[in-house]
């Protein structure tokens, strides 16, 4: 379990980072670097050249996802690069950072290293993807945390790399779906790659896109120079040695399988070389050392991508060697530039002239890195470039191979040129001297930046050492190349400094000579204006803004609070769906002739009401007209054999009118007029909806016998419940749960109304002045309603009680009873000579609550007989009692509560309302 331990240790470092920072401040880089080397030691101890090491811990067995790790040559190569460079950069950071505490920085840097380690060791598609995304995230946060100016670049970086991540996700999903496993080894060896060219092509392209975004290949390259706002350690690690290498790793990982797709090689070679040339071309003219290095990175990665596209064992060896070389010279380069900037306060080439003398060792190390970058012997950079050129030359067919080699050489010329430009100001003697009139930069003392100097020196010197002692690299790069090429280690040659005189050497020398000339020639040239990278940045920006603009337009489609605007879509949809109704037609429903005339009359009445409300221009007319339709519906219920429903509907109609009038006085008298266009469109929609509804009623209803459940009720209800009003037995016995819900709705409506009117007072508008002096006295005129109240209210109370008690056997029940009771309340309110008198202070909430408690409590009692809401029966002497009655009492109270709430809350005059508001404010404090 060494690999698991290594990965776990890497993540443990992440967890420990804040603690280290707390203990040692910015020097936390030292223990963390040590830890990282320890992890490297673990990985190396697990390494077995003879056999791939594989370990697995179950994670999501249901999906066959496991924490599978494997250590092969490729993984080893990248693990070494990631951990070693990581350690160096952490050391560098201890001195680079100026803030005493940066838990975020160290946490993210170690997290990044851990993610990279997980990525390269992953043997599970999901683990691979998770790690891949983590590197994206860490890089976003590392860039973002470098200051306000970093926000936009960080966002763009994230968007581009996340897009690539999604390409990888698509590839992963396709692979899982098609191969049925997430185990990388199995997936890569799957016969499907050769059997299904379509599959191979899709996955190859997706993987290539993912890798190209991460490795900053054209056209996704823009983010990398953009990300240079990040501090030097971040740039050195992420944008030179680690993150960009994730893409290279991915390509090398998939190369053996994906090369089955015809498009793989041309795609990589084409894009890679183009990027190499383009990056180098831009790099040559940069005046900012860091920018120069950024474009250099783009260019070098292009070469790597291209050579992976070639795919031969030699090519993969070249790629492996160049990964190491590039990691060394580029990390040294970025760190060196950071060091120069730290010591001199600038990284602009022209301002640095003459600084070589004062920077001494640091300048020398940067120059050493640049020499390796330029590919000058005996540096490692020379060896890897040789290999690269050799790979292109040996790529078949010859005509193409020479073209590739020449293009690569052109890139190399530019590389030499920009490397030279980079170090010219640091060079001793005339070359790097300040011009007349220029004062060279003042350098800070070396003491402050000791750790940085050490950190720059290590990779720079290693680039020299590994160049001279090239075979030392063999144990790492040969297995990696073999893995990436899909061959045995034996068929991969070793790395040598001296290949003898061959075409590659000649090209290489040509490049050095031409590059030097170009570099010297461009020495004094001003930096070109409009930096080209903005085009790429602009593209991302434009895409971002375009999407936002599109989104705003999409939002505009539904940006309306007017209900009509939101209802029109569903109405149209229902109408559209209804065109299918005729297909379901199955003849006319069963119908009894004798009712025809009566039914027609009711239809006429409903139509009269509907038309009246539709054309009404005044609120009063409208609510009266709706009442017409409501009354007609009451009659319909009566005609259809539902006295209970008719009575309920009638009561509801009346009480609705009472409440509506309370509301009406707070609204203008006229309805808001609709524009003719809206009226016409609404009328058309209405007509269609009417036809739809009619058709639906004809198609869906009236075609079947009495349902089983209805037959059961007719047959058994009396026997089972003791009640003869079947509807009521359904309400309080069989489907008491519906009724319970309904009474809760009522009770809570009272609470909601209270909440609403406490949150927001109802609008008030002045009522007109009284006009008839003789009749103006409200108190005197209250006699009529008061007198009627004296007669009617007792009848209502008795009637209410009567309805409650007998509901089980005849029309009545809790609802009807309560509605009658509520009518009594309405009467009391209406009869009172002022708005204030009839108010019942807030007890309606308690009444509604009591209703709920009683009903639910009764229901819970039913558990005694085995079930919630099971009515219990008692015989007290000859009297038969059932808890259904108590349940009905709950219903009663809930209905009562809501009516009281509405009347109490809406029935207030403005002065009263103010008073109530005060009291409610008091109540919530």
């Amino acid at each position, binding site marked *: 379990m060494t690999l698991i331990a290594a990965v776990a240790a890497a993540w443990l470092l992440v967890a420990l980072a804040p603690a280290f920072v707390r203990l040692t401040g910015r020097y936390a880089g030292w223990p963390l670097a040590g830890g990282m080397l320890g992890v490297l030691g673990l990985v190396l101890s697990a390494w077995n050249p003879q056999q791939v090491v594989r370990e697995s811990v179950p994670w*999501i067995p*249901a999906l066959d996802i496991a924490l599978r790790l494997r250590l092969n040559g490729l993984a080893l190569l990248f693990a070494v690069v990631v951990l070693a460079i990581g350690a160096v950069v952490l050391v560098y950071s201890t001195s680079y950072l100026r803030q005493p505490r940066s838990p*975020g920085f160290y946490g993210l840097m170690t997290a990044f290293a851990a993610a990279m380690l997980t990525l390269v060791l992953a043997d599970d598609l999901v683990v691979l993807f998770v790690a891949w*995304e*983590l590197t994206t995230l860490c890089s976003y946060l590392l860039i*973002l945390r*470098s*200051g*306000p100016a970093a926000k936009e670049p960080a966002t763009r970086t*994230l*968007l581009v790399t996340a897009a690539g991540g999604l390409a990888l*996700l*698509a590839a*992963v*999903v396709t692979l899982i779906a098609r191969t049925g496993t997430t185990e990388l080894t199995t997936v890569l060896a799957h016969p499907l790659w050769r059997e299904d060219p379509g599959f191979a092509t899709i996955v190859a392209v997706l993987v290539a896109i993912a890798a190209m975004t991460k490795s900053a290949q054209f056209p996704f390259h823009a983010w990398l120079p953009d990300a240079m706002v990040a501090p030097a350690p971040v740039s050195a690690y992420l944008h030179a040695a680690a993150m960009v290498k994730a893409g290279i790793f991915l390509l090398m990982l998939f190369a053996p399988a994906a090369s089955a797709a015809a498009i793989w090689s041309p795609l990589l070679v084409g894009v890679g070389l183009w990027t190499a040339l383009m990056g180098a071309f831009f790099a040559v003219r940069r005046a900012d050392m860091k920018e120069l290095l950024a474009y250099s990175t783009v260019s070098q990665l292009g070469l790597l991508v291209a050579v992976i596209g070639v795919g031969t064992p030699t090519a993969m060896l070249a790629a492996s060697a160049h990964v190491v070389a590039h990691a060394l010279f580029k990390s040294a380069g970025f760190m060196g530039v950071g060091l120069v900037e730290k010591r001199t306060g600038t990284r602009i080439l022209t301002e640095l002239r003459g600084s070589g003398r004062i920077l001494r060792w640091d300048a020398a190390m940067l120059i050493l890195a640049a020499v390796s970058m330029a590919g000058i012997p005996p540096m490692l950079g020379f060896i890897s470039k040789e290999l690269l050129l050799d790979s292109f030359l040996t790529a078949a067919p010859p005509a193409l191979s020479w073209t590739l080699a020449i293009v690569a050489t052109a890139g190399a010329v530019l590389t030499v040129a920009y490397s030279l430009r980079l170090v010219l100001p640091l060079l001793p003697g005339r070359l790097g001297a300040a011009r007349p009139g220029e004062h060279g930069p003042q350098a800070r003392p070396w003491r402050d930046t000791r750790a940085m100097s050490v950190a720059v020196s290590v990779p720079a010197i290693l680039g020299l050492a590994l160049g001279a002692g090239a075979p030392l690299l063999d144990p790492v790069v040969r297995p990696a190349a073999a893995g990436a090429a899909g061959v045995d280690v034996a068929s991969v040659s070793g790395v040598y400094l001296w290949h003898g005189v061959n075409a590659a050497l000649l090209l290489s020398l040509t490049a050095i000579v031409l590059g030097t000339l170009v570099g010297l020639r461009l020495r004094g040239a001003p930096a070109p204006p409009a930096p080209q990278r903005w085009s790429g940045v602009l593209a991302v920006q434009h895409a*971002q803004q375009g999407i936002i603009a*599109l*989104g705003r337009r999409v*939002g*505009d489609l*539904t*940006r309306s*609070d007017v209900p009509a605007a*939101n*209802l029109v879509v*569903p109405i149209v*949809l229902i109408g559209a769906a209804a065109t299918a109704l005729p297909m*379901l037609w199955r003849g006319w429903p069963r119908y009894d002739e004798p009712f025809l005339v009566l039914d027609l009359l009711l239809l006429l009445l409903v139509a009269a009401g509907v038309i009246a409300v539709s054309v009404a221009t005044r609120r009063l007319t409208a609510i009266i007209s709706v009442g017409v339709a409501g009354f007609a519906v009451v009659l319909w219920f009566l005609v259809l054999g539902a006295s209970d429903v008719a009575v309920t509907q009638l009561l509801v109609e009346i009480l609705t009118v009472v409440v509506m009038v309370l509301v009406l006085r707070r609204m203008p008298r006229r309805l808001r007029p609709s524009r003719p266009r809206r009226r016409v469109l609404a009328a058309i929609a209405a007509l269609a909806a009417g036809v739809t509804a009619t058709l639906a009623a004809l198609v*869906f*209803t009236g075609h079947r016998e009495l*349902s089983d459940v209805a037959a059961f009720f007719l047959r058994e209800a009396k026997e089972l419940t003791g009640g003869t009003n079947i509807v009521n037995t359904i309400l309080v*016995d069989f489907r008491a*749960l*519906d009724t319970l*819900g*309904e009474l*809760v709705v009522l009770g*809570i409506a009272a*609470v*909601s109304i*209270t*909440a609403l009117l*406490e*949150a927001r007072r109802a609008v008030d508008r002045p009522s007109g002045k009284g006009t008839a002096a003789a009749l103006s006295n409200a108190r005197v005129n209250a006699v009529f309603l008061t007198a009627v109240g004296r007669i009617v209210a007792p009848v209502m109370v008795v009637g209410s009680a009567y309805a409650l008690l007998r509901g089980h056997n005849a029309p009545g029940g809790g609802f009807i009873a309560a509605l009658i009771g509520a009518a009594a309340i309405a009467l009391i309110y209406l009869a009172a000579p002022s708005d204030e008198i009839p108010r019942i202070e807030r007890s309606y*909430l*308690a009444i509604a*609550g*009591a209703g*709920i*408690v*009683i009903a639910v409590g009764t229901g*819970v009692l*039913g*558990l005694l007989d085995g*079930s*919630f*809401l*099971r*009515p219990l029966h008692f015989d007290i002497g000859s009297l038969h009692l059932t808890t259904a009655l108590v349940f009905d009492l709950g219903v009663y109270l809930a209905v009562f509560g809501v009516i009281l709430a509405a009347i109490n809350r809406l029935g207030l005059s403005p002065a009263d309302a103010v008073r109530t508001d005060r009291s409610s404010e008091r*109540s919530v404090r």
Partner: protein
Amino acid sequence: MNDALLPLIVAVPLLASGVAAFARHRHRWAIVLLLTILTANIIAAAGLVWATADGSVVAHGIGGWPNGIAIPFVADAFSALMLTVAGLLTLVCVVFAIVADTGRNRLFPALVLVLTAGVNGALLTADLFNLFVFIEVMLLPSYGLLVLSRRGRGTDESVTGSRLYVTFNLFVSTVFLGGVALVYGVAGTVNLAELAGAAQESPLVAAALGVCLFALAMKAAVVPVHGWLARAYPSTSPAITALFSGLHTKVAIYAIYRIYAVGFEGDQTYLWIGVAVFSATMLIGVLGAVGEDRMRSILAFHMVSQIGYILLGVALFTPVGLAAGIFYLLHHMIVKASLFLSAGAIETRFGTDRLDDLRGRVGREPVLMVAFGVAALSLAGVPPFSGFFAKLMLLVAAVEDGQVAAAVIAIVVSLLTLLSMLKIFNAVFARTVSGGEPVGPVGPVRRGGLAVAQRPTTRAALAVPAVVLAAATLALGLGAQGLFALAEVAAAGLLDTTGYVGAVLP
């Protein structure tokens, strides 16, 4: 477990709500009651998960009437999981609401308890008309919660938003009831178990149930009937938005899953409609989010988008697809609430959720940043959070089912999701990352007549709910196995409904 106790999961909150309605000025006891009941609710729901995790189904005919007559309550793994997560969310959001003031209104406990009862009932009932009733039981307290504000004065916006919310939901309920009527008209029953497979046998039943599904789709804010949600949700208080986001649309989604599974038995004939519509939902929703400039508007549009993902699971109707959809549903409830709560914490402290107003004003908020960031990444499907696994499974299911277009849309939408989340993150939290000091005006900021004092960081209590849920999404990501195994059991219950039907009609 005694099946007859099943209805108590509805009855107890109801009973408590009736008691809580008595709460007057000093109502600390009502809050205690509320929290106690909500905790008990979670325990009961977790117990149900435990009881149904092996695929068994708990059912009870309420009132003890014969099968087919009584209204059945049924709990299987799916409904038990929903109950648990919904209960959890409610508790977390309620804690936030209490900390952020809305919850200290004396009416709050009663309203939330009824809402809880409504949700529980809607998740348990196997009767379409009863479902209508429970949806209303959910809605009525929601109307009250929508305008609740301790400070005594709702905003214009909350009233406008309420009107839209109430109107639209009333329309939905009415259409749903119409659908129930049509179902009874053709099938002669509204008992879901009796309707098992009926839609597959009869196009009439299919059409009638289709009306119900359409109504539920409206409620779930599926494109093109999504506009109301994006407008109404941001208009209320943050705590309530968070609460609703986890409950209302999700109950509708649950019902869609259930009805399609039982009534249609997953009939392949109509699935293409779902794939098309839900793909459009993903895309349109996220585009809307990208275009918005307020935290909660962005998040509300994301709900629409994510609902597309969730429902894609039922539109695939494969074992992996359903399990992925259910996993996604549960994940989304948690993550979306977490996002709304961290946004709400910011809004509560700074008095606005408009990005332009917040830009540069928010100082260091490391805790909220991490909570929001984690939830946002989870929403966008970035590993290692639960959203990634949800999306991954869904994508695998889609590709396995040959729905490549839907998979591609789902992937593209992820990027747009990230883009819009970055919009919030950059505007609100970027400073926390870069470690700078706030440059905006320091001191009380007046907005909506409220003076908000700026303290160095948001009160911990405000941040805790979001953090808890963010931690949950990480836990569900790293420990996806636990939930996914349950989701598979739930999916199996939808694929083979004999257990469900058999429990109702033995």
